[in-house]
């Protein structure tokens, strides 16, 4: 665990992992979505619109996974003062927000032909929209703290408090009557026919690899930024000393 606390060692591993994750994620996601779009039969009720499942569901899972990453990294930052945890949380926010937005948009497009409406204020849709707004708040807060050079502890507390929304999203279709369907996949049980389930699971794998690759790339960029700033500051100090 503490081996990774060393940014130099982390950078070495991250540099080696970023490209395979990004390329692998892109290839697997593309293949799975193509499979879902062309090879899978239409659903008995929804017809062709079922194909949006292969983008909507993985995006929803990673939207929630992104905030779970923020929450775990925030906990590690607050308790163990791990220098990389704050950077990991900051790096996960933007891809998480993008996946949440993809989930909301594809869900809306699916809802129009299936339900007969683009949007309703039921428990699942509303809590997912709240998640997107939480991401916006988190991104604004953490980037302004970083710009001011202040401690990211407030962002970490925000990340932990916001995590309460994750179980609410998950349970919203069970606790409350909602227009959104109840969970299809629970504890190894699936009410999705295997013909739809396999491309869905493979798309999820691809999206997850992509998410991991983006997070690593962003962490490296943030670390490089910090290093560049430190170097500039050192140079400025040296210049001042020389002038004096």
């Amino acid at each position: 665990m503490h081996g990774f606390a060393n940014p130099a060692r982390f950078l070495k591993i991250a540099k080696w992992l970023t490209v395979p994750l990004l390329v692998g994620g892109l290839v697997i996601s593309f293949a799975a979505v193509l499979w879902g779009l062309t090879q899978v039969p239409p659903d008995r009720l929804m017809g062709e619109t079922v194909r949006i499942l292969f983008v909507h569901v993985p995006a929803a899972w990673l939207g929630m996974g992104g905030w779970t990453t923020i929450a775990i990294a925030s906990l590690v930052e607050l308790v163990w003062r791990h220098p990389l945890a704050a950077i990991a949380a900051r790096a996960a926010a933007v891809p998480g927000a993008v996946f949440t937005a993809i989930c909301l948009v594809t869900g809306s497009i699916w809802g129009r032909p299936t339900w007969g409406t683009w949007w309703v204020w039921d428990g699942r849709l509303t809590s997912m929209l709240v998640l997107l707004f939480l991401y916006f708040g988190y991104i604004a807060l953490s980037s302004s703290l970083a710009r001011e050079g202040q401690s990211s502890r407030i962002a970490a507390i925000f990340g932990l408090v916001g995590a309460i929304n994750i179980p609410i999203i998950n349970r919203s279709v069970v606790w409350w009557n909602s227009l959104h369907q109840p969970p299809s996949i629970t504890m190894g049980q699936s009410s999705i026919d295997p013909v739809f389930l396999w491309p869905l699971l493979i798309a999820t794998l691809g999206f997850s690899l992509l998410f991991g690759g983006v997070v690593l790339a962003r962490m490296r960029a943030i670390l490089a930024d910090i290093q560049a700033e430190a170097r500039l500051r050192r140079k400025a100090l040296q210049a001042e000393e020389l002038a004096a």
Partner: protein
Amino acid sequence: MSSTGSRELKPKHQRLVLLVIALVALVGAGLLAAYALRNQASYFYVPADIAAAPPQPGQAIRLGGMVENGSITTAADGVTVEFVVQDGQARVPVSYTGIVPALFVEGSGVVAEGAMRADGVFIADNLLAKHDENYMPRELEGMNSAELREELQESMAGSSE
């Protein structure tokens, strides 16, 4: 370090304990709020709710449930449909004038927006089809699990030949 005694917590353990207590309190508050919101946050009433506490006639509500099999009838004007929404405990007759969604079929879920009329008929202004959690290709429709297993075995036997 060890001489300070085992009673004193290391700072990081202290932070861990504090955070865990804070998180438990937070999750507890969240669950309590969600529990209290159980009725308010529901998107629609089911027929059993309507039977238990009949809403005022004319009060705007949403009614959700399953369309009873064999209950859909189209009125003489051709655009008014009448059907019964049931949830296994109670049934509510519904009347709706307009274009029904594509997924509106007998035995499937529906959410109707509208109000109760004084005679107990729900007058819907808008119908939303509710999709269930089952995803199945057309070819397998109507098969029960035994038939599905048979079909699967047949196709597996076919492929091994």
